[in-house]
Structure formats: structure tokens, C-alpha cells
């Protein structure tokens, strides 16, 4: 049987990859996907812990996270469309009209 800690490590790795993706990717969509990756990393942790504690609560949590992620995706994509309409770009680095 695969030890629980492996799942946790994978979850942490996924989360970190999400973070790194957020930091290094230059396309808004990709950045946004990185967040999804982070959430999924967390989801994996929830499932792992649910398994460990033999509690269904963890899985339920995952469902909610997924629902919320879906809602976020809708809102996020809408905002990205608005960005594209006004700026005609999806490059993260060019969205820096407001600074200092």
C-alpha cells in the first residue's frame, strides 16, 4: 500500500507547482490554470486526510472546493475577457497600468 505521506508530498508538490506556475507564467489563462492546480493539490490533501481519519468530511470539502473553483473560473474568465477587450492582450506583465 502506498503510504499516506506520498499523497501528501504529491499534494504539496502540486500546490508548489501551482505557485511556481503562477509566478513564472506570462499568460493570464495559464496563471489562472495554475490556481486551479493549487486548489487541486489541496483537494488531494483533503482526500488523503479523509482517508486517514476515515471521515467523509474531507471528500465533501473537495466537492465544495470544486464547485467554488468552477464559480471562480466563470468569474475569472469573464474578467479576463473584459481585460482582453480593453487591452487586447493577455500578457500578465502588461497589466500594470496602476502602480506606485
Amino acid at each position, binding site marked *: 500500500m502506498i503510504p499516506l505521506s506520498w499523497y501528501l508530498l504529491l499534494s504539496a508538490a502540486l500546490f508548489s507547482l501551482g*505557485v511556481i506556475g*503562477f*509566478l*513564472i507564467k*506570462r499568460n493570464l489563462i495559464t*496563471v489562472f490554470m495554475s490556481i486551479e492546480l493549487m486548489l487541486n493539490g489541496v483537494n488531494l490533501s483533503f482526500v488523503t486526510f479523509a482517508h486517514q481519519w476515515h471521515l467523509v468530511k474531507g471528500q465533501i470539502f473537495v466537492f465544495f472546493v470544486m464547485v467554488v473553483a468552477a464559480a471562480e473560473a466563470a468569474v475569472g474568465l469573464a474578467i479576463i475577457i473584459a481585460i482582453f477587450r480593453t487591452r487586447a492582450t493577455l500578457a*500578465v*506583465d502588461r*497589466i*500594470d*497600468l*496602476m*502602480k*506606485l
Partner: protein
Amino acid sequence: MSGHLYLWLIPALPFAGFLLNGIFGAKLPKSLVTTIALLAPLGSFALVVNAAATIFLYVSRCKLCGPPDYGWSILPLNELHGAWITSGRLQIDFSFVLDQLSLVMLLIITGVGFLIHIYSVGYMSEERGYWRYFAYLNLFLFFMTVLVLAGNALLMFVGWEGVGLASYLLIGFWFQKTPAADAGKKAFVVNRIGDFGFLIGIFLLLSTFGNLTFAEIGARLAADPAMQGGVVTAIALCLLVGATGKSAQLPLYVWLPDAMEGPTPVSALIHAATMVTAGVYMIARTHAIYDRSPFALSVVAIVGAATALFAATIALVQTDIKRVLAYSTVSQLGYMFLGCGVAAYSVGVFHLMTHAFFKALLFLAAGSVIHGLGGEQDLRRMGGLRKNMPITFWTMTIAVVAIAGIPPFAGFFSKDAILYAAYQEGAGGKILWFVGWLTAGLTAFYMFRLWYLAFLGESRADLHAEDEGALVHARSDTKLTLEAEHHHTPHESPWSMLGPLVILAVLSVIGGWVGAGRFGAFLAPSVGARTAEAASNTLEITLTALAVLIAVIGWFVAHRLYRNYAGEEPLARASFPYKLLTHKYWVDELYGTLIVKPILAVSRFVLEMLVDFAILGGIAWLLAGMASFGGALLQRWQSGNLRSYAAWLAAGAAALLLFALVPWTTVLADVGIHLNSAGH
């Protein structure tokens, strides 16, 4: 003694006059202003005379029924009018004291003061600020009588500063003229230097005696014969600083010549007869302290002698008639100081009195000359006035003779007494005597020089002096007011001016006849009798003869040099000394360079620019700059880039995890740092 002398009314009347004229004067008719202005000093004078008469009557009545001097024990007479300042143990009262000394002073002040008021009616008649002038003059009398009547040092200080104020206002009476305004300010500020000394003296008195009442201080000193030198000397010297300021002695005399910018009657009253003698009065009043400090006394004597000689030399070459008299005043005040300095206070006061008569007369006569010449003050452009202004000429002559010290005029007696007293003061006294004696000669010389230049010879009114600037300056006195009558022949002054001249002339003749001895005896209860060894008659007669001799020599020299004066200054032949004297030893310039300019420069460049602006402002600027710089740095952080924000967020998260998970206390303990507690 029955009856009340209403001493408080003596200052109160002039004060009422000041208030009435000062507040409503601009709207009152001129005649009413004159009435108020004259009634006030007249009333005061009458009160003083009444007081004197009452006392003398009482004394003479007592003589019939008791020991001869019993009657005088009613003096000093105290009048208390409540507390002025009270705080803790400190209480300063409005206390007026009438004794022989203040009685004499009051008679001089109100008497001469009244005469000069009358004179002013004529002299200032054309003046627009007529009411203002008399308001100030009344104010002066108020403060001067307060000064003289004051029963404690602080009340005396009130009068002391007050007369300074009146002097300031009157010197600057023609404030539209820059020199007048300057002179007024200078007088006040220089006097303040003296007042500083006086005030420190008062503090010392207060801390030594716990008290400022003259009688109390005298009693304390009398009770403690051991009190000598030390703090007493310090007090005496501090008071002396005050006296040198007010009485224009070295080194603070510089304001008095400039004060001649004021109207001439003011010069007569304030800057000759009364206010400037306040220093002498003060020393006489506090003689109990000076008596305990031989050192301070000798300083007084030296200051007096030095001033007398110093001012007399400057007076030799002055060409402005009023400046000659001004330096002469400084010089004569030096005599009075000399007299006080040899502990002959009564003699000093005696000279004060005679000087009040003849110097007031000199100034008033000079004023009459100036008035008659339409504002001309330059001796070089006078001459021959004897014919046009006979009364002025004769009264002036009496005054000149009196100040020169020729018997039997007033100045002779008092000056002679001072020189005699000085001579008796041991070896140093001989030097003092010699200086005084020399000064007497110089005095005779410059006074007769003035006399010759102004009254004898031919009129030089059309002579153009080489130094037009100085001339304009010298003429500026009544220029503004007398512009209308500027160009016409010299004329005699109205009787309102001549009357006082005549009265003062009479006083200048007979003022000294009472004699220093009898005067001294009268003043003895106030200022102490001088316990000099009975001097030989021959010595006295020799000294007198020498004094008269040098006066005559002075006259003779003046006669030789100035009888035929035609616009060329004979003294100018000695070129360096002449230059030195015409520039008054460059003392004003010296003070300007050594004191005024450094203070201003330090204030501007060190205090304002360096300390205030650079250092203090710099610190504030630096703090603000640091905050602003911090803000700028933080703004750079705010790059606007989403990914950098996220990076910082992630870094923050990492920092938090590090913060929480690394056992800092253990780690730090390992490297040798021990924290008492986690966190703060």
C-alpha cells in the same frame, strides 16, 4: 506734625495731565491743552512748596520748644499706598518717602520742570503735535517724581524706566525724522543696559536683605557693621551700571549727545536738569551701601572723573550748539559722580542742584537762539547775536560764567566743593582733583568758545560750511516746525520763553550762595554727613584760587582764539587730536563694530541660519526626508506587476512558515543569543 502732605498727588497731577492730554488732547482746543499741561506741574510744584513750607514751619516751631534738631526727626516722612506686588514672602509697596534729599530733588524737578513747561508753550507753539508734546512732558514729570519719592528700589525702578520712556518718546517726538527716531531708540536701549545692571542690583538687594525698602536696607546695614565688601560691592557696582546708563557716564554716555534730536526744552529738562541726574540721586539714596564698599566708591569716583575729562575734551570742538551743551552735561554729571565717589554725596547733590539751574538755562537760552535763528544750530553760522537777542545774551552770559566756575555764581560753589572733597581723599584724591581741575579749565574754555561764537563778532549766517551734510543734520531740530520763519533776521524770543530764562538766570547767580556746608548739613540726615578731617583754611583757599585761576585761563584762551573767529576753526591746526575729538574718539563706531554688528551677525548667521535653519530645520527636514525616502522605496515595491505581487505574497507565506516552524529560541541560543521571551 498735623495735616497730610498728599505726597501721592505730586506724581498724580502730572499723570492726570498726561491722561487728559494724551487721550483727548488731539480734540481739545490749544488753550485748554496749555492750561491742563501747565496746571499739572504747577500743582505739583505748589504741593512740594507746601510740603517744604509745612516742614520748615514745623521745624522752626519745634526749635522754640525743644532741642534744635528735634523738628527734623519728622523726616523721613512715609506714605504707604497699598501693596503693588505680593508673592509669597515678597511684598513691594507703593511707598513714598519724603526726606531732605527727595525734598530738594522735588523742588528742582517741579520748579525747573514748571519753568520749562512755560518755556515750551512759546517754543512749541507752532507744533502740530502740541498736545502730544505736553502729554509726554507731563508723563515725564510723573515718572520723575515717582523716582524721587520712591521708598523702595523697585518703585524707584518704575520711575527710572518711566523717565527713560518719556525720554524715548520726547527724543523721538519728531518721529518722521529718522535721526530722531534712531536717537530715541538708542537712548532707550542704552538705558536698558544700565537698567539691566540696576535690576540685577535689585535682585542682589532682595536676596541679601530680603527686602527692597531703602529705610529697611539702611537699618539692616546699620545693625550689621560687619557687612562689608563682597556682596555689598557687587550690589553697589550693579547699581552703578544703572547709574552710568541713566546719567550718561562712561561707558554708556553715548545716547545723550544723540538725544539732542529732541526739542530743546526737552534737552533742558530731561537731558540736563533732571532725568540724567537720577543716577546721582540713586547713588545718594543708596549711600548706605556705597559707604560700605570703598572699592565701589572709588569706581564711582574714577568713572566720574574720567567721564568729566573725556566729555569735556569732546565738547571742545563741537560745532552744534546743543551738542556742546550735551557733552558739557555729560562732563558735569561726571563731576557729580566724582563728588559722590568721594562719599561727599551732599556735595554731589549740591552740584546737581546748581547744575540744574545753569544747565537748564544754557539749554533754554540755546533754544531761544535756535528759535530766533529759525532752526539754526551750527555755531559756525551764528555770531553777533548779542545785538539781536539781548536778553538771551545776558542770561546766557550768566549761565556761562556760572558753569565756568567763576565766583560768585552758582557753579563756582558746587564745583569748588567737589574738587575740595576730592582733594581730601588721600593720594588718589589728588589725581581726581587734578583731573577735575583740568576739566574745569576745559569747561571754561568750551563754554566761552560757545559764547564767543554765538553772540560776539559778526553774523555769519550766510557762511556755508564745508560739510553741508553735517549742517543739515545739525539744523534739523526745529526745521520741520519752523520752516515758515526760516529765512529772516534773528529775533528775540517771546516772553513766555524769556521769563523762565530770567528766573533761571537769577537762580544761577544765587543758587550757590547757600554754601556747600550748610547744604550738606541740611542733607545730612538723608545722605550722611561727611566726617572729613577739619581741613585747614589755607588749603581750601589755595584750591579755590587754583580753580578760579584755571577757569580764567580757560576764558582767556577762548578769548584769544575765538574773539575774531571768521569761519576757520583755530583748534583744527592740531590736526590729529582735532580729528580724534571731532569724531568723538570713534566711540560710536567702536561700539557699532565691537558690539552691535557682532550681535547682529551672530544672530543672523549663527543663530538664525546655522542653528535655526540648518540644524533644527535640517533635523526636521531630515526626518521628513527619511519618511519620504522610505515612502519612495515602498512605492518602488508597488511595481504594478501582478506576478511580482504574487511572488511577494509567496515570499511572505514562506517567511511566515519559517517564522513559525524554525525554533528560533533554540537556534539563537545555539549561536549564543538568548532571548528572554519570544516576540516582544
